């Protein structure tokens, strides 16, 4: 029998010849492997193998136990190391953790939490006070609605909440003027064209150089926050929505009660706060007579619940200036109500739009709006936040012949109408 062969017991079911006593042979081999079960007298042919196996499993020889001392020495060394790194019982761990946590909680953790809160609150306050660097201020503007860092000409002070409530009809004024400069009134409720561009070049201190807030500025920031919360609350209430719970809690705390009547009364009595971004008072322009709002604007407005929310939301109908006082609002598409419901941040208002702010444009030929294919037309994130030029409907690039640059805030000069502005708001 060779190594490659199999013995008969491995293939017992083969139909050909197999060696006799294969089954018995296998049992004998199993008995050989199990010590003490082999009967050498009954199986003399396996006696020699049994002797070999018995000798292999014989008692230990002295040479095989020679390394006991070294092994025990290794055991002792290992035990010393085990004691050093032996894990503590779980109960003790829990006690230690509890003690340390209880020690740290009123101390370091509390200080850390307080520092974090102060940092976040301070950052928000600083953002509203326009004391942050310009990039951070811009980020705060796009995220939490803080004033834009470079928009000094337009202010929330230009918004009179009461007035826009009393004048829900949008008024767009296109006053023929040879100069392209535009100034927006700060205290008045309308925007008018001024013959000189000085208003737009009013000196504005660099906001990044402001080291800290003075009490008056801090109070202005707080008033601005409350005012904007009120604006959001009012708008969303008109739209049949509710303010974000956190924002509502802040507003309720400021109002003294969470009842809608109290909040509404508080918001109605809330004065228009000054813009803390402005170091100097805004130039005040006299109200100018508004032109008749275009039919398109009205058409758009009728689809929107809540009246002229788009005004102060900075989503304004595109007013195309023309040599004639006629304003052609170029919004042809109609913003569905569903688009309003998709507004992702319900308490995040778009801006403080003067309800009576008139769109002033130089007498340029009427430019039809360019249909925008991109879902984010132009600077889709830049407009509609009230503080900015674009948000106030006075986009600087809109003064040319491309459509008055209304609230959509398009940098590329593409006219943005109300629908686009609504889309902009939705994306935010």
């Amino acid at each position, binding site marked *: 029998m060779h190594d490659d062969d199999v013995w008969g017991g491995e293939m017992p079911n083969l139909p050909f010849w197999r060696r006799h006593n294969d089954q018995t042979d296998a049992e004998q081999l199993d008995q050989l492997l199990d010590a003490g079960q082999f009967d050498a007298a009954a199986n*003399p042919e*396996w006696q*020699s193998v049994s002797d070999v196996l018995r000798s292999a499993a014989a008692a*230990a020889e002295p040479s095989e136990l020679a*390394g*006991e001392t070294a*092994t025990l020495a290794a*055991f*002792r060394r290992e035990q010393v190391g085990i004691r050093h790194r032996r894990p503590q019982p779980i109960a003790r761990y829990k006690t230690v953790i509890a003690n340390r946590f209880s020690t740290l909680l009123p101390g370091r953790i509390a200080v850390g939490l307080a520092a974090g809160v102060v940092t976040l609150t301070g950052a928000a306050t600083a953002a509203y006070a326009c004391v942050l660097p310009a990039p951070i201020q811009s980020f705060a503007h796009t995220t939490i609605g803080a004033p834009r860092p470079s928009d000094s000409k337009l202010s929330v002070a230009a918004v009179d909440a009461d007035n826009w409530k009393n004048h829900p009809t949008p008024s767009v004024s296109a006053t023929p003027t040879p100069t392209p400069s535009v100034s927006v009134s700060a205290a008045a409720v309308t925007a008018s064209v001024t013959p000189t561009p000085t208003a737009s070049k009013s000196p504005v201190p660099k906001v990044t150089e402001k080291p800290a807030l003075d009490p008056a500025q801090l109070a202005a920031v707080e008033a601005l926050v409350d005012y904007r919360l009120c604006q959001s609350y009012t708008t969303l209430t008109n739209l049949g929505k509710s303010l974000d719970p956190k924002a509502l809690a802040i507003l309720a705390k400021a109002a003294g009660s969470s009842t809608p009547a109290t909040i509404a009364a508080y918001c109605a009595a809330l004065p228009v706060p000054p813009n803390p971004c402005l170091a100097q008072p805004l130039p005040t322009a006299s109200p100018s007579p508004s032109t008749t709002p275009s039919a398109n604007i009205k058409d758009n407005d009728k689809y929107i619940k809540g009246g002229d929310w788009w005004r102060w939301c900075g989503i304004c109908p595109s007013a195309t200036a023309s040599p004639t006082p006629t304003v052609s609002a170029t919004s042809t598409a109609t913003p569905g109500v569903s688009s309003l419901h998709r507004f992702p941040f319900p308490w995040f208002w778009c801006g403080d739009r003067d309800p009576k702010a008139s769109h002033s444009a130089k007498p340029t030929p009427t430019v039809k709006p360019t249909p925008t294919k991109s879902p984010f037309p132009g600077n889709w994130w830049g407009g509609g936040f009230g503080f900015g030029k674009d948000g106030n409907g006075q986009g600087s690039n809109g003064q040319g012949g491309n459509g008055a640059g209304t609230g959509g805030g398009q940098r590329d000069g593409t006219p943005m109408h109300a629908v686009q502005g609504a889309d902009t708001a939705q994306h935010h």
Partner: protein
Amino acid sequence: MSDDVFEDVLLAAQEGDENAFAQLWRALNPPVVRYLRTLSPSSASDLASETWVQVIRNLAKFSGGEPAFRAWVFTIARNKVLDAVRHDHRRPRSSSDDIALDQLPSPDDTAQLAMDNLSTDAALDLIASLPRDQAEVIMLRVVAGLDATAVGVILGKSPGAVRVAAHRGLHRLQELVGRPPVTLSAQQEGFQ
């Protein structure tokens, strides 16, 4: 060593009792050394030392009865052999002692040696002359005292494959002895 006694000894060893560990070592080191001799005759003692170092390191993590402990120790020993074989394959030497066991030719004088002096060493040499898998199975079954299932776990084989390999090894061993058992016994008696 009964299970109860073994549990006490093992627990004491895990807690650092040197005498308890010595009992375990005395009980298992001889079969471990013999098993290693059949696989790597030249470095059996070194591999046994490495095996026990590994056992000492992981002793606190072990849990189980005596068969499991025995199988665990022999598994470590086998892994040490495999590591040594891999190391030798990466760094081959000219010495013939380091050639893999399954590549070694069967010594012609092994049977005669077994006949002349059927000592433990001679029996181990005789078993070591078998093909490696057969020798390993026989050593684990006979010397280590493990059943076919435990051997299969160590070798990565089924119990049936272990049984077949053991039977083949025994047949081969019988051929190596080459003499009727009676004659062998008679020679033994004559030598004694």
